[in-house]
């Protein structure tokens, strides 16, 4: 008959092996107490993105542009003064009539 000292290591080895196949391993069990805070955190992150996604996208874009050494994205300047009318082309247009 084996003493308890001899059996114990075998039992603990068995337990260790079984735990490898057990589908209800403690770290992987997602009960309500785990899911709810997790969902809450995810919802917070998602909500934050939904509210500020434009700002975030803009900031990310800006950071990338700066990292690449490019200036901030700006609409091109529009010239306020009109170019002088090319009188020769005007005449040409009319004469094609």
């Amino acid at each position, binding site marked *: 008959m084996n003493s308890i000292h001899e059996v114990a290591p075998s039992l603990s080895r068995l337990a260790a092996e079984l735990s490898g196949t057990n589908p209800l391993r403690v770290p992987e069990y997602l009960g309500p107490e785990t899911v709810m805070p997790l969902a809450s955190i995810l919802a917070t992150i998602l909500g934050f993105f939904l509210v500020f996604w434009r700002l975030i996208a803009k900031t990310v874009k800006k950071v990338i542009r700066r990292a690449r050494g490019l200036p901030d*994205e700006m*609409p*091109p300047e529009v010239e*306020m003064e009109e170019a002088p009318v090319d009188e020769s082309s005007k005449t040409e247009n*009319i004469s*094609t009539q």
Partner: protein
Amino acid sequence: MKRVIVIGLDGFEPKIVEGLLARGELPNLAKLCEQGGYRRLKTTHSAQTPVAWSTFSTGTNPGGHGIFDFLTRDTKTYLPIMALSRYEQKNAFVLPKVVNMRRGTPFWNLLSARDVQSTIIRVPCAYPPDQIKGRMLSGVGVPDLRGGFGTPTFYSSRTGLSSEQSEKVLTVSVKDGKVATHIVGPRDPKTKSDHKFDINIQIDKPGNKIIIQSQGQPEKLEVQLGKWSKWLKVKFKVGMMQSVSGIVRFNLRQIEPEFELYASPVNFDTEEPLFPISSPQEYAHDLAMKIGRYYTAGMAEDHDGLNNERFDESSYLDQCRLVLRERRKMMEFELGRFESGFFFCLFDTPDRLAHMFWRFTEPDHPANRGVQQPEFAQVIEEHYRECDAIVGEAMKHADEDTLFIVLSDHGMNSFQRGLNLNTWLYENGFLALKANSQPGEGGDFFQNVDWNQTKAYALGLGCIFLNMAGRESNGILKAEEAEPVREGIVSGLTGLVDSDRGQVAVRSVARREQVYRGPYLSEAPDLLVNFSEGYRVSWGTPLGGVPRGLFEDNLKKWGGDHVIDPELVPGVLFMNKAFREESPSLVDLAPTILNALGVPKGAEMEGKDLLS
């Protein structure tokens, strides 16, 4: 056909066009005429931009799309409201959204359903924009940041200056060559006060200019005397972590003896519009990155500034040219990458310019007040020549496989005399005023009207509504009483003579069912007044005024108009393919374009393919 290109020239008047064509001054349009043809184009009842372009897009009469005028009325309060769009907020937790009041199915939706791409620039009554395959930028109907058609601000050091039509006036004081003031932003719906954006103005007298310093973009903006500035991007703080940005231009009128500065209505920011003005939403931003910031308000031209005499004709002309150049840039940029499908670009300036410069073509126009300015007499024709050059530029993108169309929604005519429609209704027993009230005492918004005794009232540009029981909140007319009242108004107004001039002011009055049919007929005005040439509804009528006297001279610089009998103000139609020439109408364009692109016309469309 692989492609259809449509260039819209708002308010392009056939009589002017035909004169210029005869003189050989519109070479590109003449070329189109030779290739395909030219006809006058039947417009809508009434001949107004939003009504007519909605008919162009849906192929139905206004009864099929529900746009009858710029304005309609709130049947609960009788107050005028914008007819083109409205804002909805279901509850405090949902963001407000804008709803387009143009109903019906625009033909580009049918194109999208068949995977045909469209590029549509500044089409009226598409705010918010239709979700299409391709790109769309909204036009007339997009408000300024205050939610109206455009409210400019006039800064003056003169005291006692009062606000004129659709504007804000701010009295400022100049201290040590500096002015501290603000830009007027959107109204706070809770406090009813205006949001403000602070600016500091440094006056440079020797340089004939000012520098506007602010936290906007750019931080320092130079404005030369008598010139339009570049855009200033401003941001209004409207709440905790909430801000609204817009863009504004300035025109410096005077530095001394009085300081006077004009600020345009604050347009939606091109990069971050308050509400969507393009489809896809980022298109407005992307376009700005390519061509620069641009006017986003539907009414881009600052006609109120000229009408209120806050700047002169030359400045208005400069601004119209700015808008035209900007639109041309949009067109050229988009045509440069246009491969197949439908392309549309609308140029509004022919209309806005003719409204303000028509009077120079008529020496006897009351608005001239006896002063002739011959330097402006040719402005409209010169502008038409510029438009012809734009058409020529667009024609370069049309090949054998392209249907190329140039059209206008309506023409233009004279506006010398105004009829006070509500006053006529009052004098003829259809509209009642409260006890001890007389015409001319109440101002706008039907202030002194006694609704319990009123049978009919006028609002908008020539619309008359009956005060119907069960429809209007204080309606008194039963269904069986309506027709005798309508008959009384029709017979009384038809042929109405302006006794001061001995001219017939009203050609006819149309009952709504005579000119409209379709699902939105019940929203239409009950009667439409068809004015003669030279006449229009007075300035005091559209917002519900009952001024003194029947007729009045039009002394405003807005001296041309087209809201008269639609038969007198047809548009123009040019096509590069031979087309059926008997009385083409705006309703024919949608089926023609659809058919050219191989898409069957919509079931509710009323017109016919002009090419078949």
